[in-house]
């Protein structure tokens, strides 16, 4: 049975997609067959991190939701795109980046059961070990559904006031949905903070384990959305922390 991992953040800009992309890549490097679902339908972007241009995407998650394509047709094997020696495989299920499609999804919504069956089929057809769901910020319908069907929920947050509040809300909502395991990832932490102190304060506040305290580094800022950090800087301490997150989510 594949492990279903949702990666969420209450607000945008926390580095959620970057975290998902890096953890997924590291898991694939270890030999896992990993699927990444981009349900961040309102602002797609994870495909850019995997070096996939918008015009290269033939079918998207939206086509599946409207019955225009089978889920196997929209899953893209992006292992070759990464130009790295990965022992496993990495698949991306992109969402539509066309404005019209985005509006339609927002207007019509989608059936949670259709989407869940889609996930299940995807796991079976691609023989996935891990399915990572990159959710939309906030707590909308798709996100709540993702949490319901996940084995693990990772919440990415920054050490600032708005994220503290939003993360608190997410943690409590996820508990009501009975997600089996929750991890917090504290991202973009200014180097002036003591990581151990941040970890213990956050754990104490939310009663929830912290998988890693990720520093805000110049290298990450420079790389921004142009690639997978863990592949570009395999020896960097941030990569070590991504590995730590990957191990936590699989453990």
């Amino acid at each position, binding site marked *: 049975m594949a492990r279903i991992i949702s990666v969420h953040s209450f607000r945008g800009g926390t580095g959620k997609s970057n975290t998902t992309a890096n953890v997924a890549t590291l898991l694939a490097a270890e030999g896992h067959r990993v699927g990444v679902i981009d349900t961040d339908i309102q602002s797609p972007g994870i495909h850019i991190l995997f070096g996939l241009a918008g015009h290269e995407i033939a079918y998207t998650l939206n086509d599946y939701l409207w019955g225009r394509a089978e889920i196997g047709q929209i899953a893209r094997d992006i292992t070759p795109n990464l130009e790295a020696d990965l022992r496993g495989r990495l698949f991306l299920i992109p969402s539509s980046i066309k404005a019209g499609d985005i509006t339609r999804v927002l207007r019509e919504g989608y059936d949670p*059961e259709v989407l869940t069956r889609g996930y*299940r089929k995807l796991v079976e057809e691609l023989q996935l070990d891990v399915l990572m769901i990159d959710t939309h910020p906030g707590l909308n319908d798709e996100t*709540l559904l993702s949490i319901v069907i996940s084995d693990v929920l990772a919440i990415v947050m920054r050490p600032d006031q708005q994220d*503290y509040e939003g993360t608190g809300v997410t943690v*409590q*909502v996820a508990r009501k*949905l009975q997600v089996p395991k929750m991890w917090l990832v504290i991202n973009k932490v200014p180097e002036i903070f*003591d990581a151990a102190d941040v970890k213990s304060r956050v754990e104490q506040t939310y009663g929830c384990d912290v998988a890693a305290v990720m520093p805000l580094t110049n290298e990450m800022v420079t790389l921004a959305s142009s690639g997978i950090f863990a592949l570009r800087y395999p020896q960097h301490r941030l990569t070590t922390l991504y590995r730590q997150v990957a191990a936590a989510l699989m453990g």
Partner: protein
Amino acid sequence: MLSTIDRLIILKSISIFSETPDDVLVEVTSQLKDHTVNTGEVIFEKGELGDCLYIIVEGEVRVYDGERTLNHLGERAVFGEMAVLDPAPRSTSVMATTETRLFRLDRDSFYRSIGGRVEVLYRIIHILCQHLRLRIDDSAEDYKYMMQFARVTAAAVAVEAGAYESSSLDEVASRTDALGQLARVFQHMAAEVYAREQRLQQQVQALQIELSAAKQQRQVAEITETTHFQDLLAKASSLRAIMEGTKE
């Protein structure tokens, strides 16, 4: 009173007269005036108009400028020679540190008896050069001191601007004097202030996490009390069963 012979012996032992013939020095001895000062007595003060030089027969004097001692001079030393050559105010003050016996030679007597003696002038120039060299060294040291002091001031400004680097004071801190100590204390204090600031910042943020609890409860209720959430909760086990493959 010393005899002419005694005076001659003393003069001969003084470096500026070491190459002057005895007959000339005998004439000088007749021009010398005896002068005895008590412990702590000021012989002349900086800024006074001087018209004589002094030779220490016995005792010791302190050459100083304000609070700062420039030199201690003992037997057979000459001081005040600049006033004889250049009628300008005294550049330093001199005080006896013990009961001191001096010979005093007035400018007029000096010129009359030995003013034309090249070897005497040569020795005096030599002494002046030594003084000048000491002054230059002092000035260079003063300048370096001021520059290093300016670094401490600059460090204080940098602390305020948040651009302070502790290493900027390493050189000053290696001094063994009071300025070095100031720099070391400053480095220590700046590190303390920085650490305290960091602790405070973290405490403030941690405190704010606590404060938002009531607001969070409201936001959670806004989501969990919707019909959509309740529907999803009702369907949850069915959806999990689909995912696990136990329900078609």
